[in-house]
């Protein structure tokens, strides 16, 4: 009997955890759906969407370029030393471009935006929640989801694919820098390989991934901030825990979603 109880308790915990997680996923999905639908009723909040594009997109350009350049450079370096063993350094352009466009671009852009914009979203909305600013919106008959979440969703859906494209371009140039300028691969061969090996499906696949990642990041980060008050921790501690959860959960979900999407897109 005791053995049964000892086994039962972790099983109950696991079951409860699984049910809670699935419930939370459902709530996040509904939260996103509501926020997305509220982008469109007139008057469309152009100013707020532009402000968020500036914050999520424009202000991330530098960090995305920096990450893109170094990722491309590392790919060029690693790729060259791998390919040189087989005497096929000519395909370096294909290797760098395809890894960037299909995988590295969408994933690393999303991770960078989570670090820069996602954590800020969770913290900002969380602080608004604990200082009753969200309640104040409700008392003024202003829908907090439309006011706070919808512009962020719209901005993320616009910014993520553009940032991913930028990451890819800068990454390919980074690969050229190490592969051709430093290690002597023929530049014309490098770029012609890039052009010939990248099909429209690869670019489309990368964009689909970036849009899905945008949905995941903005939903999780806004959700964590918006429901800070339902946590067991209160006040500043609650906001800090929400921000941490937002970052960790978004990163994990990005990698999980990346695997699922890749298996469908290949």
């Amino acid at each position: 009997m005791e053995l049964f109880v000892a086994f039962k308790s972790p099983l109950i915990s696991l079951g409860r955890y699984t049910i809670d997680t699935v419930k939370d996923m459902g709530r996040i999905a509904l939260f996103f759906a509501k926020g997305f639908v509220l982008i469109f009723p007139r008057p469309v909040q152009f100013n707020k969407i532009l402000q968020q594009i500036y914050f999520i997109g424009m202000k991330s350009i530098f960090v995305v370029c920096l990450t893109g350049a170094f990722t491309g450079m590392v790919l060029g370096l690693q790729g060259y030393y791998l390919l040189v063993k087989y005497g096929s350094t000519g395909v370096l352009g294909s290797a760098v471009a395809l890894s960037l466009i299909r995988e590295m671009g969408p994933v690393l852009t999303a991770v960078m935006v989570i670090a820069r914009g996602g954590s800020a979203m969770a913290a900002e909305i969380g602080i608004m929640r604990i200082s009753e600013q969200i309640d104040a919106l409700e008392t003024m008959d202003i829908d907090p989801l439309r006011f706070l979440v919808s512009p962020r969703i719209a901005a993320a859906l616009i910014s993520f694919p553009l940032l991913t494209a930028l990451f890819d371009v800068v990454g390919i140039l980074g690969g050229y820098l190490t592969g051709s300028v430093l290690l002597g691969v023929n530049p014309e061969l490098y770029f012609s390989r890039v052009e010939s090996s990248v099909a429209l499906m690869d670019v489309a696949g990368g964009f689909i991934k970036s849009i899905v990642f945008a949905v995941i990041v903005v939903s999780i980060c806004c959700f964590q901030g918006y429901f800070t008050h339902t946590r067991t921790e209160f006040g500043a501690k609650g906001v800090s825990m929400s921000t941490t959860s937002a970052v960790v959960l978004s990163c994990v979900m990005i990698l999980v979603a990346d695997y699922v999407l890749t298996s469908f897109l290949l």
Partner: protein
Amino acid sequence: MAPALIELKDTVKWLGPNKVLDGVNLRIYRGQITSIIGQSGVGKSVLLKHIIGLLEPDSGQVLFEGKALAAMKKIERKALKRKFSYVFQDTALFDFLTVFENVALPLTENSVCSETEVNQRVRGKLHQLDLHKIDNQYPSQLSGGMKKRVALARALVTDPEIVLFDEPTTGLDPIRKTAVHSMISDYQKRLGFTSIIVSHEIPDVFFISQRVAMIDGGRIRFEGTPEEIQQSADPVVRSFIQGLESPHDELTGIASQSLGQKRLAREMFRLQRHARPFSIVLLSVENLEDVDRIAGHVASQTALKNFATFVKNNTYLTDTCFRYDMNKLMVVLPDTDADQADMFCKKLSRNLNTDAIFDPSEDRKGLCFALSAGIAQAQEDSRIDAMLSGVEKRQNIFYECRI
């Protein structure tokens, strides 16, 4: 009595393991100011949040014009919400918006009027609350008192039918505190809105409220008029009120109303026992609302404070001067008959000048100050309340100045 506008019936609310509201029954009547008083942490703010629908009761009902909020359709609740405004205890101002944008937000987001009208209404409200010089600043750059006033401006800019104030004066200095009370009372008279104020400011809220409810142990311990609560025999109510009442009026620095009433009772006893005569003089500032409109509520309350100081300086040590109402002072003159009290008023009128009331450094153009006085000599067989109501009826303007 007219049917209640808002009614809470057996409202129960648990917050975590705490039962904050334990069967609250309360009625709020249209066009009245109702104050909710009670110790900290007894659920006054929670009660207010149930009224506006930010919190739902675990059991019981909140009725608006006899209809339960929970039974209302979404569109009805939306329409109802537009009738309400809420002033939060911690202001809940949007820290990423300027003062102007904060006040304009309920108008711009709900597209209720044109941009020009928004501009006009917001500027008007900021001017009334003496905030027009800081309209470009952010809430984090403001003092606590200023933030409170911005929150008030934001609540009143939509001309709501029902305004809920959650401790609107906490953290303000005495002049601004009474300026806020006078503003609430003034707006309520002019616009006729219904108001619910959660407050600790006793007896100040009694001056402006028509009804008072005291919450204790999750239930309404007392509900009635300010006069009734001050005469309540309930030991819990009495100890709460007396615990908060200061012997001195916070704004004017003169004796408080309760101390004045005690002094009146003592003089009456002396008259009946030792035949020592005494008179009372009721001094009312008749046009404080005009000063409000021209120079703002802070200027009007400063004028009242200055006037109280002037009266106090013109009385003897044995006289008692106390705050009788929002704009009324009473002077109790022992060993004085009606003729001598009349001479006292004449002396006040002779000595009073505009510089004593209004700050000479401020722009005072268009301001007017009118005082009326009512005099009564106590008789051995007269009752204090009859004497007070009599003196209120016999008031005549005895001083007027225009600048």
